[in-house]
């Protein structure tokens, strides 16, 4: 087993000590996947989150599927416009649904496993008319940070795999699209002990290709508290051809989030929260600008938001909420490494602004 394989194993290992009958209820562990098709701009985000422990805990799955407008319901679609379908569900965590070593989670509508670096994920929501089935393996350098940031009396850890080779299919209604190796796939993990409502971060993944067919991927994370009075040190990973090329840290990274001039009510999941917060109008991000430089190399990233929605996660114990702005859109990059300048247009990004 090489170092990358060790890191992938540590990263994918299920973290909640749920065999302990006294396992604390504030444990959380989730697996996060993003699929993007450069040809149609279709993008899918899926998150599977385990909360607490069996019997008393629960499992949440969340899906956002953005497609060319009209594709799902007719034979004519507008590639210049996009529309988003999605759902967020809570399930009981029954003993026996989840096994580890190897990781396997099986219920009526979700089948998820990771074995010998092969990830298999089959998800269906009959009532929403959405399903997808994918199988794949990692291709990018993994990064594993066991304790990324402290939160309250707890912590959150992070594992990143910003490149996976996936194949499969996505179904919506009576339409089906195939996922193949031309699609970009991002995967990460978060785990830790914390309460929703007391946590926040800024995160994005950006994937773009330069005119020499060089593939660039940028992944950023910066922790923050609810009102942004405290922020952590930003970390920006730079990947080229799926290999980790550079890490920019701290004061070398500048993040500028420009917001819309008018407020609006974004689409909200889960549905119950959409009704609870139906009168809450907010200013959504419009553009994200990131620059990083360390005297040798520098990069400039410009991300224009063209889909935005909000995920509102309640905490069962403290009756408070975390608001996750889910953003995606197009991206341009300029990067100078070893005095060689390249640029990417028509890139893609997915971001979360969380408080």
């Amino acid at each position, binding site marked *: 087993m090489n170092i990358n394989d060790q890191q992938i194993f540590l990263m994918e290992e299920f973290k909640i000590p749920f065999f302990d009958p006294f396992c604390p209820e504030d444990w959380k562990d989730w697996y996060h996947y993003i699929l993007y098709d450069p040809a149609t701009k279709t993008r899918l985000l899926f998150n599977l989150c385990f909360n607490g422990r069996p019997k008393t805990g629960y499992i949440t799955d969340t899906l956002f599927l953005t497609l060319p407008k009209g594709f799902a319901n007719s034979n004519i679609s507008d590639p210049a416009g996009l529309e988003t379908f999605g759902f967020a569900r809570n399930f009981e965590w029954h003993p026996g649904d989840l096994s580890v070593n190897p990781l396997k989670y099986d219920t009526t509508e979700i089948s998820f496993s990771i074995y010998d670096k092969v990830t298999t994920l089959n998800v269906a929501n009959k*009532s929403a008319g959405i399903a997808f089935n994918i199988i794949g393996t990692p291709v990018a350098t993994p990064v594993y940070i066991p304790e990324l940031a402290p939160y309250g009396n707890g912590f959150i850890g992070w594992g990143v795999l910003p490149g996976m080779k996936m194949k499969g299919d996505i179904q919506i209604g009576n339409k089906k699209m195939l996922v193949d190796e031309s699609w970009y796939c991002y995967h990460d993990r978060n785990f830790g002990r914390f309460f929703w409502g007391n946590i926040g971060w800024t995160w994005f993944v950006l994937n773009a290709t330069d005119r020499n067919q060089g593939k660039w991927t940028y992944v950023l994370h910066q922790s923050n508290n609810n009102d942004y009075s405290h922020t952590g040190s930003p970390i920006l990973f730079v990947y080229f051809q799926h290999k980790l090329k550079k890490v920019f840290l701290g004061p070398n990274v500048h993040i500028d989030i420009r917001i819309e001039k008018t407020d609006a009510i974004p689409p*909200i999941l889960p549905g119950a929260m959409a009704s609870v917060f139906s009168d809450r109008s907010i200013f959504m991000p419009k553009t994200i600008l990131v620059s990083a430089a360390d005297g040798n190399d520098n990069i400039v990233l410009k991300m224009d938001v063209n889909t935005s929605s909000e995920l509102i996660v309640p905490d069962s114990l403290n009756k408070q909420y975390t608001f996750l702005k889910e953003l995606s859109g197009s991206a341009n990059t300029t990067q100078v490494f070893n005095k060689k300048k390249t640029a990417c247009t028509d890139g893609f990004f997915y971001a979360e602004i969380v408080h």
Partner: protein
Amino acid sequence: MEISSHTERPTVEILIDLIQRMIGVIRYENKFAYALLQQVTANKSTVIDLDGNKIFLQASDTSDYIVCLEKSEASAGIQFTTTFDVLQNIIAGTTTIDKSIADHSLFVQAPFQDLLNMYRLVVCLLAEGPLNPRLRSLWVEFIEKCCRPTAGSINTIEHQKPRFNSLIDNIPQSILLVNI
């Protein structure tokens, strides 16, 4: 994993049982929501229509609070009417309570203060629902016994918000720009 499902239409008795069990869960697991339920419904009665199933509800006073439910044959005086699909769409996030009222897929009629109080109660139950395993279980049972498979168009989440501009949107721009 493929999409397929089949459900049968429910009876009034199943709905009455689900509502009574929901009240029982709130009574023992959320004192705030139960107190609000008592405050909002005490000494009141109503008839609701859920997908053609009419139910009469009557609540006693707060000192000895009891909610009685029975099948109703009323054809008038129904204060709440909607379908199972609309309720499912609200929880699924493809519509909201506001939009359902605005597009007439959910009808509600009562004195204004009663409407506000009932809305507060419903929002409280929606906030509590995802986190309470017994309420989640009741919702799953309702879906399994009442809701039909998705038919026709799949709904986007962008359309969950109501649009209130239909009147002004239908006025020609040239009229709107008239300087009075």
